[in-house]
């Protein structure tokens, strides 16, 4: 069985093998036990994974780490790196530092958003050209609203 996941560093494919009630991948073995998964690593140590799914995302806790793997249906495209600058949570725009047509360099402050009782500065992660600014100061934004658009320069 093949699964594709999107994580913080891009897409990863997993080729899962099944033998009896054991699943395996790259020398690691998994067995479902109730709502937990028992894992055996190649060196013989065992580990316990807790998993839960929310939407398309599998959350996995293992060895003190928490992973968030978005499962991609075969043929679909990951939404993880589409670069859309959307509001991470409901809030209010406090300040806008750029306007359409500005060129920005990575690290430039673009906007200040107030959310969860704190101010958050939104910073350009790459150089580029501002092609749209959707909100002005003091405007409320809902979660997921596109804030501004930057065309990446190479």
């Amino acid at each position, binding site marked *: 069985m093949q699964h594709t996941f999107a994580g*913080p560093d891009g897409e990863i494919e*997993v080729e899962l093998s099944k033998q009896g009630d054991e699943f395996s991948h790259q020398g690691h073995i998994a067995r479902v036990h109730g709502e937990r998964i028992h894992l055996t690593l190649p060196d013989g140590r065992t580990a316990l994974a807790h998993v839960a799914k*929310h939407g398309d995302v599998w*959350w996995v806790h*293992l*060895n003190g780490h*928490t992973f968030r793997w978005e499962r991609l249906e075969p043929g679909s495209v990951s939404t993880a790196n589409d670069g859309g600058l959307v509001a991470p949570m409901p809030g209010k725009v406090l300040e806008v530092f750029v306007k359409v047509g500005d060129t920005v360099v990575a690290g430039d402050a673009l906007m200040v958003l107030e959310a*969860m009782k*704190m101010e958050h500065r939104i910073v*350009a992660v790459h150089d580029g050209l501002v092609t749209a600014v959707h909100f002005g100061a003091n405007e409320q934004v809902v979660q997921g609203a596109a804030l501004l658009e930057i065309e990446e320069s190479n």
Partner: protein
Amino acid sequence: MSIKVLVANRGEIACRVLRACTEAGHPTVAVCAANDQGSLFTELADETVVLNGDSIATTYLDTQQILQAARSTGASAVHPGFGFLSERADFARAVSEAGLIWIGPSPEAIERMGDKMTARQTMRNAGVPVIPGEEVEEEDEASALVALREASNRVGYPLLLKASSGGGGKGMRAVHRPEDFDQAAAGARREAVAAFGDGRIYIERLLSGSKHIEIQVLADQHGRTVHLGERECSVQRRHQKVFEEAPGPTMTPELREAMGQAAVAAAKAVNYVGAGTVEFLLAPTGEFFFLEMNTRIQVEHPVTELVTGVDIVREQLRIAQGEPMSCGDLFLRGHAIEVRLYAEDAANGFLPSIGPLLVFRPPEGPGIRLDTGVREGDAVTPDYDPMLAKLIVWAPSRDEALEKMRRALDDFVVLGTTTNLRFLRELCDAEEVVAGTTTTTTIDDRWPNGWKPHVEESTLIASLLAASTAETAGMHRAHATGSAPTGDIAPNPFTTLSRRFP
């Protein structure tokens, strides 16, 4: 004698106080906003009054509604917890004038300590050393900014801007260069106005390399004022504490005595009654300076409880009832560490996160205490502070406490919302934490470009195997109708965004 206690707060501190009241035999009343109906703390109270309003200002900060709730339920006392109305002298006064017991210090003590600029002046007069700096009393924005700019030149760089009504890092800015001053001062003022309705800002010299050491004090109505030793809370991010311990790893009995006596003097200078905390900066020179006094129970009070054996909330109840404190002389045993579990993305500039708590399984075992206001099935929303829980451990020695904390953090499972668990876990391995040489800039010094988790390849592979196995075995189908919350909660978008929010 039994009193009926209304707890004017929410979340974990409301749970802490409500349980203490129930154990002491006091009936309890909770107040909550509509979006908190069914929250854990409301289920711990004997009665709950729902407050009308759709913001914090119109619910948990609405003095009149809360007093009305006390009247309608026949409550005889009010415990404010921390935050919210806990340091509002006018609320304390209104509670007393309504004939209710205020579980806290007098309105006058709150006023003199709550206004940080007045507190600095009071401490100077009482002979308690304060950090070099300047207060600016101008109320008008434009002239205040001018006055602050002038003061900044006298204080010198690096400096710290602080809101006179501030707390919790709100309205605070560190400024390292004069050219950054204006923007920082405007931002601090704006945040202070938004958070506290008071934009007055003062300036302190930024003492780098210092430790944040605070002394817990207790004073009853029979003239007894004691200190319960220190907590070290140097490790902070965004000016908010994340790692606290008692006793301080580098503390000496002599310094504890000196700081304890200064804290007792500070409390006595304002005729303090109840539980309070006097915060100091301890410079590398061994000098200590008064920072501020928090006139209420403190988030990190559990570490003091664990090493002193004093139940601070029970003592608050006793003191408010006019009884003498029950605790004896200070006797410290072992070592306690607290970490604050936040719904935040530590790998992304500690940006707050939201989402459902699909799985929330705290670690178990002796020596572990968890103070929380949530449980599995709840959701983290943008409505309130993103602190999910305080994880506290006690062990006979500091080394063993760190060992226990590492194990506890490894075993803590939270799925559905991004948290700082892994950051806290790696913090426990940081050289400064292990050595006890942490300062207020440890996190910034150690991770100047932000923190990223270190993941072994084998763990990464195993996590992908677990996700694939769970998908193939259909494990989500059982979960969907089980412990997962019902409401329609959108997936947390933070972790899908590939950009920084510094």
